[in-house]
């Protein structure tokens, strides 16, 4: 959803803060412009909205909706930063950690990882309550410049949309159903596809975790200068209001 602006907007509120929106904008798009951060993982600037991770769930008109896909409506009262919603988001994020093998201490995405950053933002500090699924997934290092460690994949689908919509390639796609659904490549391995390190889908900003790895540059950014060393995830949006 591109959010094409009309001449005149309308207003609605998020946690009591008045926000201006334009016809066709989603709640999240309007919130971003107004400096109100709504947590998200599967949504990414420049990619079409998917609404699958549900981390952006807000209450609008008494209903739970995905802020990345729900159109803003005049006069609507949206709840975002509530204890109930943040607990639900924390549970979702915790389950993502449990479905994969997320070893932050040795992951080169640490400090730049949106999943890790979201866990910090949502104060995921207590002992885990879900069982680890500990999947056994082989690392695909077949490509000369890119490696895939799907142990860290959270099935956000950002690489799928980037490859299809931006690169026009369709290198990635979902396979399987339900708990078994996962992202796979269109070939035996990544080297068997026409993936290129210049693809938008392979850029570090598209993969929110450490699944798509640019080879031989890991850990080159020192601790203290990584993306989320600078502030909590969402701080850049929230700084618009200051």
């Amino acid at each position, binding site marked *: 959803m591109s959010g094409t602006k009309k001449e005149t907007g309308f207003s609605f509120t998020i946690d009591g803060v008045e926000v201006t929106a334009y016809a066709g904008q989603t709640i999240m798009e309007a919130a971003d412009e107004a400096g109100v951060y709504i947590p998200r993982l599967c949504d990414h600037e420049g990619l079409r909205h998917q609404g699958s991770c549900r981390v952006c769930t807000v209450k609008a008109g008494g209903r739970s909706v995905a802020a990345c896909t729900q159109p803003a409506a005049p006069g609507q009262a949206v709840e975002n930063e509530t204890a109930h919603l943040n607990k639900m988001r924390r549970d979702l994020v915790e389950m993502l950690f449990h479905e994969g093998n997320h070893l932050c201490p040795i992951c*080169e995405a640490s400090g730049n990882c949106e999943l890790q950053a979201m866990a910090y933002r949502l104060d995921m500090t207590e002992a885990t309550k879900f069982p680890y699924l500990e999947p056994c997934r082989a*690392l695909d290092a077949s490509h000369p410049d890119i490696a895939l460690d799907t142990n860290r994949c959270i099935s956000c689908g950002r690489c799928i949309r980037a490859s299809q919509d931006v690169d026009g390639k369709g290198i990635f796609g979902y396979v399987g159903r339900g708990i078994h659904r996962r992202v796979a490549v269109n070939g035996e391995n990544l080297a068997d596809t026409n993936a290129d390190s210049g693809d938008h889908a392979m850029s570090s900003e598209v993969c929110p975790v450490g699944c798509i790895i640019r080879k031989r540059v890991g850990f*080159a950014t020192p601790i203290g200068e990584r993306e989320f060393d600078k502030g909590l995830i969402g701080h850049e949006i929230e700084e618009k209001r200051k």
Partner: protein
Amino acid sequence: MTEPRMVEISPVTRVEGHGKVTIHLDAENRVEEARLHIVEFRGFERFIRGRLMWEVPVIVQRLCGICPVSHHLAAAKAMDMIAGVDQLTPTAEKMRRLMHYGQVMQSHVLHFFHLAAPDLLFGFGAPAEKRNIFEVIKEQPELGKRAVLMRKYGQEIIEATAGKKIHGTGAVPGGINRNLPIERRDHFLASIDEMIEWAGDAVKLAKDYTIEHEELVAEFGSFPSNYMSLVRESDGALDLYHGNLRALSSTGDQIFDQVPYTRYHELIVEDVRSWSYMKFPFIDTLGPEVGWYRVGPLARMNTASFIDTPLADAAHKELKAVTSGTPNNSTLANHWARMIEVLHCVEKIRELLNDPDLQGSDLILSGERREEGIGVIEAPRGNLIHHYKVDEHDQVTYCNLIVSTTHNNEGMNRAVKDVAVKHLSGQDQITEGMLNHVEVAIRAYDPCLSCATHALGQMPLQVELFSADGALVDARTQCV
């Protein structure tokens, strides 16, 4: 006459990691056998396989929380080789050296003041409740304060060079990911002279103890052995970060010298014994019976021709004078040697802090790719070897680690038996104080049992007493 017995010390305390000692006594209460058992299993060599080469320095440092920097740098040096980089930029090498000197400093200070000092100050047989760092602080608050602040200084050096005090990310294949900002440099320079003064006092403390307890030091767990370490390539000086291998006999005869460490596997063979997960390395040409050797601070004092910092060099000469320039075989002299290395490290840190190369911006190089890399470093506890092979997809296919405590395995076992024979033989009652003598001998090596094997489960150090027929007679599991 009593029934044969077995004593078990479990866990051995104030060491890093978990292990136990078993002592077999015959019907006359004479020590028949005494062994240090490492019952943990280290799986790093196996589960690093398949991982990407640039991840290795970050993953393998998780072997240890005391000296992760040593594993981080040894692995990085191996990866430099694979990345085709034989010479780092001046900034990268000096930043890594700074990190390493901070690491050796803080680790040695931790061991001497926090782990060994209670034995040295209060006596090996002092009540167990007395033998801890808190009693040291209570009785000698100035010493306790220095112990904390010196360790803090070393830890902050690590943080400035690796990003974190423990398990940072500074070294990458081919270089380093940061330099040292001027403001951090000035922060460290502000207290470096005080650190040098305190390190000098620590050397005096350890030296005075060694000289005042000359008879004890001469006999306690002491025996001749071979010694091995890196020495500087050009002149045989002490070099903790890089150099060639040198090995000497107990009388100072050269076994090998200035051998590039990439040939370590031609020199050293690892023996396996059924009762321990820790291997027993020995020098191939000498064989397993006489080819075992010791590494660590005292070994380095024995092998190094000199030290290239003035205060530590003067202290080194004093230590060498005790044995008229021949290798010092006294296990307890390790403490003196350890403090000389602290002094050397802080002198090197001062030298580096005044070097403008630390503010350089040329950090990472790359070269022609190789399939195999070997990195060797002198870790606080001694020589540390990392060896890897990497395939064309950047994935590790082979890993072999020989850590300091493994090099010292035979030496520690001999020290345990020596002390057990001298202090436990013929005793009807084995007291906790007697058993602590055995632990003191182990502690002198500052072993890192978790590095040497790595824990998968719980197995702290313990002492067991066996009868002549193999029955367990007594066991002690000690807690700090």
